[in-house]
């Protein structure tokens, strides 16, 4: 149990996150430079499946911590668990996916271990045995290098910035069940319930995103039901527009995003917002419908591989980022696009 590189595998009650396997890919590359193998840390309850998957994705050993106190995710006992393991076994580096949990556990473990935490890395390079992290700052307008002089170096990896290896079911690795001692002091919170997200596909993990902006409410040919005031009619129109965007997303297996303007106007809940004050995404394909592309929106999507913009204003800044643009009425283009994809993808 002495690998230098550890990867924390995040999951939601046994449901794996693809970003954990991306971290495994980054961990294998670091192990190539630092020597030794990769140790995965899997914690929670009933996680044999996740532990086996970790091996298939590249772990040489898995520290499997199963404890009823870890059944629900709570930051405090999870951080204590990881700090205990790390102070016993002294890894050089612990990688985490930048999920809500990964960021928080890394932050708290850094306090316990008197270590440095470097969140949201998009690049890792080993120099003289130390990992130099590249991370975006000022909403992605600049990149910063960061290094930690303490060990372990705690690094969270931006989702979709690193590539997950192909899983190999024939790989072998040791799964080591461990127990940790968690005290009452670790049980500062109690989880009393959950509610599901309204959207099907998680935005940050999505490989395709279809987003709508303010322009989505501008369909003059729709007649709202009688009795609505002006604001209600606008929201009703926007909801019809987002329904149309949802149909395109469904054909593509995509998540639905939105601009801040659309969220602030009440067209769609905040969890769909892409941008500086929303989610930062980097899908393979980003289709922006009726989004002008303010700098704050760009901060959330500019690293998407291929950007497609549909907007009736040829001067909209979004076209500067777009690989393909259509200047026109999204109410005509989007349904036609949905139909064309449906035919070509055989759905």
């Amino acid at each position: 149990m002495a690998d230098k590189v550890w990867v924390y595998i995040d999951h939601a009650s046994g449901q794996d996150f693809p970003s954990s396997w991306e971290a495994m890919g980054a961990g294998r590359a670091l192990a190539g430079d630092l020597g030794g193998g990769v140790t995965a840390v899997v914690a929670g309850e009933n996680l044999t499946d996740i532990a086996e998957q970790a091996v298939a994705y590249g772990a040489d050993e898995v520290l499997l911590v199963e404890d009823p106190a870890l059944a629900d995710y709570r930051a405090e006992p999870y951080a204590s668990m990881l700090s205990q393991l790390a102070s016993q076994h002294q890894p050089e580096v612990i990688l985490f996916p930048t999920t809500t949990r990964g960021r928080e556990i890394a932050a708290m473990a850094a306090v316990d271990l008197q270590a440095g935490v470097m969140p949201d890395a998009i690049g890792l390079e080993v120099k003289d045995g130390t990992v130099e992290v590249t991370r975006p700052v000022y909403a992605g307008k600049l990149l910063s290098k960061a290094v930690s002089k303490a060990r372990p170096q705690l690094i969270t990896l931006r989702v979709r910035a690193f590539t997950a290896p192909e899983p190999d079911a024939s790989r072998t690795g040791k799964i080591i069940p461990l127990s940790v001692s968690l005290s009452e002091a670790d049980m500062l919170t109690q989880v009393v319930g959950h509610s599901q997200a309204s959207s099907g596909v998680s935005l940050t993990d999505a490989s395709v995103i279809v987003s709508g902006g303010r322009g989505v409410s501008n369909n003059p040919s729709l007649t709202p039901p009688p009795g609505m005031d002006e604001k209600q009619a606008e929201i009703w129109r926007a909801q019809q527009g987002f329904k149309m965007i949802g149909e395109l997303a469904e054909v593509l297996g995509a998540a639905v995003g939105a601009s801040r303007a659309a969220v602030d106007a009440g067209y769609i809940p905040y969890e769909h917002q892409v941008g500086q004050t929303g989610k930062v995404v980097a899908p393979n394909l980003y289709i922006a419908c009726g989004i002008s592309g303010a700098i704050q929106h760009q901060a959330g999507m500019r690293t998407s591989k291929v950007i497609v913009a549909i907007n009736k204003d040829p001067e909209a800044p979004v076209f500067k980022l777009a690989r393909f643009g259509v200047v026109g009425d999204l109410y005509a283009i989007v349904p036609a696009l949905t139909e064309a994809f449906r035919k070509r993808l055989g759905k």
Partner: protein
Amino acid sequence: VVVEDGRVSWGDAPLVINPWDEYAVETAVRQQEAHGGEVTVISAGGENAKEALKHALAMGCSQAILISDPALAGADSLATARVLAAAIQKVGEVDAAFFGRQAIDGDVGVTAAQTARLLGWPALTLVSTINQLDPQAGTIRVERSVEEGRQIVEARLPAVVSVVKDIGEPRYPSFMGIRRASKADIPAWTLADLGLTASEPIVTWPELINPPKREIQTEIITGDTPQEIAEKLVDKILEEKVL
């Protein structure tokens, strides 16, 4: 009741209030309106962080404290969290410390969790709704925004709470608020006032670089009908092999 906001701002850009922190200030002021007590707003930064503090005062905070010390230049997240934890303890009798989600410059987003860990208080991060906060009973119940949906969590006070945008739109400062804020006396605390000594940062930032320029050739797709445009666009997208 004392409710607290901690904020970190550094750098030499003209400091407006970090947009995330406005949500924290709004949340704290709403709790004050519901339960009475005071809201103390704290910022660690240079003299120019005072403008952000005045904005928070104008929104309705009762008092502001600036933590200013030359030794804080280049402070990493852990050093910053130590300063905020010490300041919260020095203010004393705090029921809840509210944080924005992250600073807009360093984008680190770990300060709330680290401060909670240092204080030994529960960390309720990424909170979208406060269902219940009862200073008399010393309890809080919140909804947190996590990847798979919302998690409903209960804890004892005092607690650290970081909020996301769903918590509610920040108010505009009132005319009276702005007048009061412009006259406010904002005390400055140094590390020595907090009983801390400067420490070497663990994490350093050896360089800032510009992101590589992306050369994007935009191709505008045209056609006589929406169907024709859509067919062409689908061909182009499929050629990129991103699906």
